């Protein structure tokens, strides 16, 4: 007998089979990785431009509204809001292109700005009450079309009829570029503002707050109930038909399509209990039903993995069953259980279908400040914007997906860290 029999047919067959298997595995992995990479690049390349916005500085003189520019320091915010500066603002904007005199053409000048310019000017006055001069430079948000043109998302070399920007507006843009009057800045309002019909003004602040409140409700409801139910079922409940029945149903619950939970929320929470529509509270309660079985199943698995010898050790020194479970079993199971909870929360964060049914799909301009205010959520915001045709919403859709993915990645990383850090080492 020899250990170097290279002509052993059987061995060679086994080895080449192993080699082929490895090749298949690597191919599968590359395919999966390539797919993820493709997805991320395509989202990132359309979405990143939403994180900055185009601004145009204009000079505004306020002498026609107040005789002394220092008087703003004495005005309250309400008083500034009540000022009528619309026509003054328009006049100052027209001054950007002094040689345009035609009324119709003047209107075109206004169109290169976001229609909320009056509010932006008032906000500037409110923020800088103490330092208002006779002539002030104020940066105004450019309209979505100019914004997209500047970001290079609109082709210019097509006939005027098929463009959203007229030849005149393009010439305004070129002139501003020459005068160095087109600037970009970080799109901070994107994170704080609610939804809007105008892409340049729309933000995910409302969706973020809605998702936040929804998740808080989900946590408050599903974490304690899930943990207690799992601990009871795994550690205390007698093994009988009834507990088997409960177990099967919890597993079934985890497999129910999410839209069914939406119907349940609609039928019971909204119609029977009359809870407020479109709110994070109802969304959270509905999603809790989905998260609950995930948490229960993960926690039970974690508890089951704790060696029974630990329970016996505690019981044998005279601990009650509850002491054995709470002092020794649960701490060991906690990392696994929390990991499950975080995965459940991540699912809830990305869930859309049930929220559509309970009305969290409404167009909400105001950022919700409590869980009972009407609100959207991140995935629903994506759904809403993905339906809009404007190029500005296309980039915002991708940017929102980036935010959502970022949050999910953070959640999953937390789960990994918890597991690594707190797992009991035997």
């Amino acid at each position, binding site marked *: 007998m020899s250990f170097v029999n290279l002509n052993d047919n059987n061995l060679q067959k086994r080895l080449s089979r192993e080699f082929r298997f490895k090749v298949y595995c690597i191919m599968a992995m590359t395919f999966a990785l390539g797919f993820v990479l493709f997805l991320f690049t395509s989202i990132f390349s359309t979405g990143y431009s939403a994180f900055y916005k185009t601004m145009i500085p204009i000079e505004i003189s306020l002498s026609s509204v107040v005789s002394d520019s220092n008087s703003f320091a004495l005005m309250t915010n309400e008083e500034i809001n009540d000022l009528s500066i619309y026509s003054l603002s328009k006049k100052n904007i027209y001054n950007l292109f002094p040689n345009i005199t035609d009324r119709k053409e003047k209107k075109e000048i206004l169109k290169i700005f976001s229609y909320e310019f009056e509010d932006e000017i008032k906000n500037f006055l409110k923020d800088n009450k103490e330092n208002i001069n006779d002539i002030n430079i104020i940066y105004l948000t450019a309209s979505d079309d100019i914004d997209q043109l500047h970001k290079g998302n609109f082709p210019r070399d097509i006939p005027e009829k098929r463009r959203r920007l007229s030849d005149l507006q393009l010439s305004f843009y070129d002139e501003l570029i020459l005068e160095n009057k087109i600037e970009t800045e970080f799109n901070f309002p994107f994170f704080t503002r609610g939804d809007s019909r105008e892409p340049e003004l729309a933000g995910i602040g409302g969706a973020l707050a809605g998702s936040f409140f929804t998740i808080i409700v989900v946590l408050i409801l599903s974490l304690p109930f899930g943990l207690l139910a799992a601990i009871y079922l795994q550690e205390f409940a*007698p*093994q009988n038909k009834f507990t088997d029945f409960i177990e099967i149903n919890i597993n079934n619950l985890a497999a129910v399509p999410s839209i069914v939970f939406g119907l349940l929320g609609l039928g019971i929470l909204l119609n029977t209990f009359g809870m407020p529509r479109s709110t994070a509270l109802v969304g959270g309660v509905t999603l809790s039903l989905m998260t609950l079985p995930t948490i229960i199943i993960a926690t039970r698995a974690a508890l089951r993995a704790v*060696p029974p*010898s*630990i*329970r*016996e*050790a*505690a*019981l*044998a*020194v*005279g*601990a*009650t069953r509850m*002491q054995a479970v709470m*002092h*020794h079993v649960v701490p*060991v199971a906690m990392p696994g259980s929390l990991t499950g909870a975080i995965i459940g929360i991540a699912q809830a964060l990305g869930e859309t279908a049930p929220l559509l049914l309970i009305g969290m799909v409404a167009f909400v301009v105001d950022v919700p400040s409590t869980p009972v205010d009407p609100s959207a959520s991140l995935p629903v915001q994506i759904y809403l914007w993905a339906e809009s045709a404007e190029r500005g919403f296309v980039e915002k859709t991708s940017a929102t997906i980036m935010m959502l993915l970022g949050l999910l990645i953070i959640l999953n990383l937390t789960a990994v860290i918890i597991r690594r850090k707190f797992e*009991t*080492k*035997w």
Partner: protein
Amino acid sequence: MNETKIITNNVNVYYGEKQALHNVSMNMQANEVTALIGPSGCGKSTFIRCLNRMNDVIDTCKVEGTITIDGYDIYSKETSVEKLRERVGMVFQKPNPFPKSIYENVAYGPKIHGIANNKNELDEIVENSLKQAAIFDEVKDRLHEPGTALSGGQQQRLCIARAISVNPDIILMDEPCSALDPIATARIEELMEELKKDYTIVIVTHSMQQAARVSTKTGFFHMGNLVEVDKTEVIFSNPSNKKTQDYITGRFG
């Protein structure tokens, strides 16, 4: 002879339909080591687990007959299993320290029973228990390191320290040396010699030599029956039952 500590009378144990022990009646004396021997699956663990009611944990397990400790029926309605287990400690076949510090392992029992009034008393109990279990010198500098990081033999002595930390009367040991090397085994046997001055010890073992070395009395189990129980010398030199004879001479088991 010492006073009788444990009396079992016609104990029958069932796992569901299956009967694991048949009419076991046996006495165990205070301050003695009683050894239980027999082939695998004959019911030694089942029997020893009746003595601190660890079988209560198993849903399907049913115990009949009477078991008294100091004349008190431990299966009576008024018995609290927690109090019983405080007085009847147990050491398992596989060392099973809690995944906590060495100190926590030993302090846990006294803590839940409220035995120590303050931190100093607790420290003292931990130290004494570790000393009695002959492991103190090895771990005194790392009391706050995890108990699970010790070697197998050290872990088993830690478990013994944990069992004696609540000051029991009786210590049950189910094959405490089966996972240990001869040196660690010898240390634990020495320890038993020491411990029996203060405690009543019941030990299950697969090693005939160990039974012969440490015990005063030996019981031989076979297929759920207590075949013979007598002074250890008698069992090993002059057993009255043919099966015992065959087992100790290695003809089966």
